[in-house]
């Protein structure tokens, strides 16, 4: 059986890239191709249409899909957050007048996608720091264009990932305000590996094989974090200087209902998910 695994180009599914490049899927008896897709939100439809059978999706996409009746289940995690990770940064413009969290009220803030992981992170951070989220205006922009937007003063602050944040700060037009990962409990799931419930029910052995392959990749990653760097550079075809500086994610493929609950609670609080989700049934044992 020929399988396709869909994911967007980002560091979270590092274990998958690693397993793919090391031939671990083949080794465990699955014929699997990794397909990069350009947007997370299209993944549920692609799963249902059977264009891809497995996907690595962000918790926001996953929970939203489930909340609206798309019956997906997760059977593995990818990477988790740690306080030490600088992967995500909240950066303000030099001339925006933002120094402290309180200054965010009423400002224009850039995010990569309304309702997506970074957006949720930013809103959660604002909320934790006592800012009324509803006073701020959120604007969508692509990650690579964020530096230009901030420089031109089109947004007052934004949430972005490490390599872009470094550029803004080192060139002097951005000020690092916070590292939101340091302010949430450690060990939150960055992405989950999912399939439709129907497919998962029909292919338990395949799932076991995929899990085994990813587990093995996790082992390699834990032993040699630099292996991830190469795998990410390869999989996403990054320029070598970027690959060299990329902040390495922490691979951890265990997944618990509690991790999903944490996301769900924040999303609910900010009205980013409608409907009820029974997280207990969402993680395959």
């Amino acid at each position: 059986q020929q399988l396709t695994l869909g994911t967007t180009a980002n560091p979270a599914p590092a274990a998958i890239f690693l397993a793919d490049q090391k031939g671990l899927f083949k080794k465990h008896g699955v014929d699997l191709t990794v397909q990069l897709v350009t947007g997370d939100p299209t993944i549920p439809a692609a799963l249902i249409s059977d264009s891809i059978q497995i996907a690595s999706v962000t918790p926001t996409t996953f929970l939203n899909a489930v909340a609206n009746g798309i019956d997906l289940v997760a059977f593995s995690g990818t990477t988790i957050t740690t306080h030490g990770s600088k992967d995500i940064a909240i950066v303000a413009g030099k001339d925006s007048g933002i120094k402290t969290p309180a200054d965010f009220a009423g400002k224009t803030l850039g995010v990569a996608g309304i309702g997506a992981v970074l957006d949720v992170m930013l809103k959660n951070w604002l909320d934790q720091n006592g800012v009324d989220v509803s006073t701020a205006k959120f604007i969508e922009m692509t990650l690579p264009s964020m530096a230009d937007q901030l420089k031109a003063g089109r947004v007052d602050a934004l949430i972005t990932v490490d390599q872009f944040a470094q550029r803004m700060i080192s060139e002097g037009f951005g000020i690092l305000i916070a590292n939101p990962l340091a302010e949430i409990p450690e060990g939150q799931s960055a992405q989950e590996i999912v399939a439709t419930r129907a497919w998962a029910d029909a292919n338990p052995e395949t799932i076991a094989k995929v899990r085994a392959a990813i587990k093995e990749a996790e082992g390699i990653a834990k032993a040699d974090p630099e292996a991830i760097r190469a795998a990410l550079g390869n999989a996403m075809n990054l320029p070598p200087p970027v690959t060299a500086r990329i902040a390495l994610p922490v691979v951890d493929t265990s997944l618990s209902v509690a991790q999903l609950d944490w996301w769900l609670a924040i999303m609910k609080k900010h009205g980013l998910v409608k409907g009820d989700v029974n997280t207990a049934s969402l993680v395959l044992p």
Partner: protein
Amino acid sequence: MNAVARSLWLAGSLGVAAGFVAVWHAVSAAGLVSPVFLPPPAAVGRALVNGFTNGDMLANLAATVARVFGGWLLASLLGIVLGVIIGISSRARIYVAPSLEAIRPLPVSALVPIFIGLLGFTEQMVLAVIAFGALWPTLLSTVHGFGAVEPRLYEVCRSLRLGRWEVIRKIALPSAMPDILAGMRVGLTVSLILVVVAEILGSREGVGYSILLAQRSYQAADIFAGIFLLGCVGYASAGLINIAEKRLIYWRR
């Protein structure tokens, strides 16, 4: 056609549309397509009612309609002016037209970053994006209309020694008017399509933006409610163009 006949035709037309809605209902009732992606018509109706009573659908609609018409008028004006210039000037045809032909097929979504770079996340940016995309149908039709003027009329102008501007204003534009209006009709549709793109990429509140948010959270009924609103705007504006057509090409009937 008198008022009675007109309303009968409208009723018939609504009947046909209702037929399509019935087919849609049957499809979703039979479960042929997941309701997550194709909601039943009733759910869309509820979403609409809910949007107008609880949400800010009305404000969104007003903002979007203003953008569509602003952008479309800008596009039509640009299209006609450029079309006239290309229609009459061989120099414009040599130097400018080929470049226009090359940027014509560029996906607007790929160009939006450039527009944002120039204009920021502003209302002007949204208008510029719409104008850029909706300009082509009118431009092409105008150029064609100018080429299709009865040659004898041009000869009349030449023997009357009308100036260029007069030829344009008195002969070519009226004669090309049916073509121009047809182009503007298509341009309006393109504007409606682009307003969604522009609102999404420019983060401007409106029907398009609400469609995006609904899409992000898989709220199919809200997506279709937004589409339905765009459809209504489309229908209403088509009616306006019909009226314009009746007044501007009275001599055709």
